[in-house]
């Protein structure tokens, strides 16, 4: 009888222990799964592979297309990436992009060229697992032919007009005097 009672309580203890072990094991596995999910990938392998212009020698005011190629070398999709184009420190334009696993995609931007030597930088930024990442690629210098300021004829006409008025002003008193009938001695 005694032996029977001990055996049943032992069994109960064993079952409880078994249940506890299973539960804790399940909990650990769950934690591990969560840890895998939250941990950033060891190699965050996204890159900007190319930055090209539809016309490398545009004229000022010409709208050109800037193509930026982004490659995701990881086995998972990355969403909510911001791809922006910078000219010096100014943000020209930006767009939200997402890129699938092991994919390379080209994104086009329209830009109205500004005169002078320009350098465009493509910046890829995102918040990945609480960490801010920023990848950039700088273009080669491009020379944008500035729109000519004014024309040559206007300053020539301006100087001729000034000469005409200044030299012509010599004659104004004679003309006025002849109309008013006054002689020079009276002037």
């Amino acid at each position: 009888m005694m032996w029977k009672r001990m055996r049943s309580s032992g069994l109960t203890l064993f079952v409880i222990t078994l249940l506890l072990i299973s539960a804790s094991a399940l909990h650990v596995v769950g934690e591990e799964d969560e840890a895998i999910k939250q941990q950033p990938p060891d190699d965050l392998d996204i890159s900007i592979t190319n930055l090209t212009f539809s016309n490398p020698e545009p004229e000022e005011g010409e709208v050109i297309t800037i193509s930026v190629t982004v490659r995701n070398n990881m086995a998972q999709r990355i969403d909510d990436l911001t791809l922006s184009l910078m000219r010096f420190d100014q943000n020209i334009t930006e767009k939200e992009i997402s890129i699938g696993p092991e994919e390379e995609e080209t994104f086009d931007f329209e830009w109205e060229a500004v005169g002078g030597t320009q350098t465009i930088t493509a910046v890829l930024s995102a918040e990945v697992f609480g960490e801010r990442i920023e990848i950039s690629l700088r273009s080669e210098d491009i020379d944008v032919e500035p729109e000519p300021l004014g024309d040559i004829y206007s300053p020539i006409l301006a100087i001729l007009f000034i000469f005409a008025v200044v030299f012509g002003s010599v004659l104004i008193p004679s003309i006025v005097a002849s109309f008013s009938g006054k002689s020079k001695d009276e002037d």
Partner: protein
Amino acid sequence: MKSIKEDMMEDIKNTCLTVSFELKRHFRMKRMIISFLLAIGLPLIFYIVPLIWASFPDTAEGFATLNLSFVNLLIIISGSLFAGDAVVGEFEEKTGLLLFSTPQRHSTIFVGKYIGALLPTLVVVSIYYLTTSIEIIGIYGVEGITLEYFKSFFIALVYTTSAVSLIFFFSSILKRKITSTLLGFFSLLMILPIIENVLQFLVEVEPWYILTYSAGLITNVFVGTTPIGGGPGGQMGQFSPDFYSGLTVMVAYTLILFFLAVFIASKRRME
């Protein structure tokens, strides 16, 4: 009584006589030599210094922009030299007692004096541009002389006329040669640029009506519509002068101040 044609011919002859007298006076007072030497010497600095200690800018436009940013200074110096005492000198030194008693019309005397101050200043600016163009050809070849260079030259000539008009105006209203010359010199070199900068950077208003602001076009033509700022300091500004309104402002300054100066001087009497 003379016919209108004879009257006009006499006025032209008298004006030419005044111009010739003024030019001889400037020559006698060595003003021409000084300003011509400056017109050759200043651009030579931009050639010799980089040749010995540094290197030339990559482009002819860059060299021209650097060199011509100082043509304003030469215009101000020559304008003050030639026009600073043009009218006031006659009143201060009492030489007007002899001059104004001649049968020549007073207006022709003052127009002649204005032309006598304007012509050498224009020649000085032309020498500066000629020296710079020789340097550009020497460094970058003939193709370095672009249409923009000629545009800049003609704008500089228009600016010269307005600067001379302003100094000539001061000469017609003030009583002393030194005051007129210094006021003309400092108004173009400092006073107007200060007002221009205050309006630009503190009030944030485009000072399109300020003469020195329009002078920025002399070098701005080399960089197209992209503003690089104007004035002797070459400071980066948030505004840049519009080509056509800038030219109009310069022409307006020239003609309004010229007519005002001639009118005031003609009405002025010896004390």
